[in-house]
């Protein structure tokens, strides 16, 4: 049939022009996993949860880099909110969470009750939560960093949202806050306003610095934004053990968080070299801020950023690897 002939001719022509390129699977570079042979036990697939902040991503990027390059693992990254990621331990969707902020409730539920997760040690990073102002404010009003002077400056922070009180900008929805109780119990003339997202908080602080607009708000470190703008922390009444036991009566600063890693029980028992890597992984706030800066400020892909840091820190990486 005429039609079929046309198709055949067309097809043949296309194939002729098409030939000559590299074939799929032929080029050695196209096949990951084969390049890192000889590192002992088979690693298989490592499912890393990626919680939605850049510091976390820095941890994950470096771990993924080492797991792929040094251990020959296949790393699958899953962008998940914290709570959702913990659910994944039970189903095998998620092997590891590599930066965890406290979450005693989740630990209780998944480690103690469901026994689907286990603690895999500290990351070495120290988490700080508190109230911050832009550097220009700290320079102009040096005594603002003491909470007892906050009422003096409440007038400055009035906005369309807070009415006749000062505005305390709150609320990345992922983080626990005691701010409403704090304002009440410290008798501050402020109103908590929910910014609603990290992006909103960062935008507010950026504008504060740029337009010399007074902003006071909730923030935390390590956080990549601090490498762009060194926010200054307000000193609230010092944290003492148990001072935050009753959420309604809190009148003290937030505790210092020792950030840690959580892995699924199944993964911990698997004997995967990747588990050993994650268990051994530890670094400093500066390390993380650096990688986070590569990613957010310098717009590097996480893998690129990790490779760059890894190239400069071979010794540290070596300490994380399983001893064979």
């Amino acid at each position, binding site marked *: 049939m005429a*039609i079929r002939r*046309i*198709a*055949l001719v*067309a*097809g043949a022509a*296309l*194939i002729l022009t*098409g*030939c000559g*390129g*590299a*074939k*799929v699977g*032929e080029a050695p570079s*196209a096949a*990951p996993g084969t390049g890192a042979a000889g590192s002992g036990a088979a690693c298989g697939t490592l499912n890393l949860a990626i919680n*939605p*902040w850049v510091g976390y991503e820095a941890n994950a990027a470096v771990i993924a880099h080492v797991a792929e390059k040094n251990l020959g693992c296949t790393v699958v990254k*899953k*962008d*998940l*909110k914290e*709570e*959702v*990621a913990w*659910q994944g331990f039970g189903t095998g*969707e998620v092997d590891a969470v590599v930066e965890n902020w406290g*979450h005693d*409730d*989740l630990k209780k*539920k998944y480690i103690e*009750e*469901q026994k689907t997760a286990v603690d895999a040690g500290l990351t070495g990073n120290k988490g700080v939560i508190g109230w911050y102002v832009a550097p220009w404010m700290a320079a102009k009003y040096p005594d603002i960093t003491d909470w007892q002077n906050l009422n003096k400056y409440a007038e400055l922070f009035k*906005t*369309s*949202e807070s*009415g006749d009180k000062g505005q305390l*900008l709150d*609320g990345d*929805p*992922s983080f*626990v*806050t005691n701010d*409403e*109780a704090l304002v009440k119990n410290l008798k501050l003339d402020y109103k*908590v*306003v*929910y*910014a*609603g*997202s990290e*992006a*909103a*908080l*960062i*935008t507010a602080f950026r504008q504060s610095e740029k337009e010399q607009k007074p902003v006071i708000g909730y923030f935390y470190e390590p956080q*990549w934004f601090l490498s762009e703008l060194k926010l200054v922390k307000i000193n609230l009444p010092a944290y003492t053990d148990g001072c935050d036991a009753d*959420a*309604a009566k809190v009148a003290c600063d937030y505790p210092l968080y020792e950030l840690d890693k959580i892995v699924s029980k199944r993964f911990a028992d698997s004997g995967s070299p990747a588990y050993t890597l994650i268990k051994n992984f530890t670094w400093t706030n500066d390390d993380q801020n650096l990688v986070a800066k590569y990613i957010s400020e310098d717009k590097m892909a996480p893998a690129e950023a990790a490779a760059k840091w890894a190239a400069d820190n071979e010794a540290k990486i070596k300490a994380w690897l399983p001893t064979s």
Partner: protein
Amino acid sequence: MTALTVTARLPARRYLIGAVLAAWVLGHALLSGRDTLPLGGAELTPLHEGANEAWDTVDDNRNSNPFFLYFVNYIRLVLDESVRFVQALISQPSFGRPVPLLGWLGVVALAAAITYLFGNIRVALLTVAGFVSFGLLGLWAESMDTLALTLTAVAYSLAVGIPLGVWAGLSDRFNRFVTPVLDFMQTMPTFVYLAPLTLFFLIGPASATIATMIYAIPPAIRITAHAIREVSPVTLEAGASLGATAAQSLRHVRLPLARRTIVVGVNQTIMAALSMATIAALIDAPGLGKTVLKALQTLDIGAAFNAGLAIVIMAVVLDRATTAASRRVEAQRRTGREISAFFRRVEVTVALGIAAVLSYLSYTYVWAAVFPAEANIGSYVRRAADAASAWVQDSLAGFTDALKNLVTYGLLNPFESLLAGSPWWLVFAAGVAIAALVGGVRAAITAAVGLAALIGLGLWQDSMVTLAATLVATLLVMALGVAAGVWIGRSDRADAVLRPVLDAGQTMPAFVYLVPILGLFGPTRFTAIIAAVVFAAPVAIKLVAEGIRGVPATTVEAARSAGSSPWQVITKVQLPMARGAVALAANQGLIYVLSMVVVGGLVGAGALGYDVVAGFSQHQLRGKGLAAGLAIVVLGIVLDRVTRAAQARTDRLGVIKED
């Protein structure tokens, strides 16, 4: 008689509403701040705690409860595998290969062949351009992931939706049952069911597919039912008179005649699925949505815009392709049969032949499998978007504060103070009275039940704050909708210029424009209102424009020949005659604004939106988030019912008066 009594009662009703409002304002002045039922950000009611516990129970029994073992888990498995299968075909490394089965060339060729065969050569070219641009933007794999999820969800949505739609089209009883369910599904904010879904179906493609389906099935059912219903009774009677059985009449008469409208339903389903597939990124749905969300974390406007652009392009391609397909159904009749059968065979053979050859190439050769990285203009797009947004923020900064303060102090704060600052019983009484006056007894009962539910959910004050912002946003939407709608409805040039902008506004994920708007207005309630207006205005504008266009040309001509000025034509002829469309625009605008409440929570709206967002992220706030989600649904249902009742009532009165 009736006309007399009605006209006599009309002004009285208006005065009564005025009296209720006056009493409310007075009561507010005297009792402001009392009995406002506030609930702090971290505070919970027993209901919320109960919800938390119920949640935990489900979570703990996932692997032992037979309902999960034999039902839920199977659904999850099937859906997961379906999505993974499509991903293996077009987007993810599979079957031991470093690349998917079909490379970019194969996908482009196949998409072009399909759109050509079902549509026409122009949409085929558009498809090629669109798909190639995914690669050029540097987002090939992400785009294919989104496409895979969308297509899978659409396939399942249609498989469920079309039969149900046919049923609803045939049975009044089923239709009456399913309509409120669909209303519920469409008013419920996406975020609200994302979290509970993960509870049942865990994170990943299954939950994402179901979330997408929840959003995409209603149009499939509604439009199919409508199509089945609108089949000409004469034709059906003709079939019956020839002795057709119910099944024959469905197969030979109803379905073929409804086909064109059902294709419109397919189009709507695809668009809904696509918009949801991006939001489902929050529960690890693969694709462009993730890129957008990530960009939001680092406030990377350029990257967000780049990915948003890819989504818009995909929406345009899918929309035009299905529209062309539905036109083709129509056009098919007009071509002679014998001739087309031969050409058709040629067409199909050649198109599929070429696609098959190119697919083979993309299966075999790297250059056809992996989109060439050198041809990447994504970075330019990103930089341009960054620059544009920076410019806008710098040059508008002075103006935006004034606007924000004007709306906040002039409109929002008084509204909010009246709603959230008055004692709950005063608001309750005034709300029910107003509902009764504008919508009748039924509307009043709906309002009473709804408001009581808000109290029961423990979120009265937050609901009132959200309600105030919603009303203000809807006012702005309608102001914009009427102004721009009239303009577009009257001018073809305005239509040609603005329509693509409106389409983009509707399909661009809200996350993309949040960051620039945040930059302009800071984290405030006003920012949330603006985000809602950007999202809802296109629909309202389109509906109003549609209504203006629907006014018969002869009526306009008559008015003009009587010496009316353009302004008089608009206010005395076109707008009154488009009253139905304007009312519908207000109703839809309201629903769209409500669906942005949660997104508003991300940028400073606080209240219910923030409760939902926080519930989504924080373990101990889950129950409260769920309650907040329900509160949004309740607000939606009450507002929807009351406005519809009011609309029906004015229509009725209009008719009586005109008699």
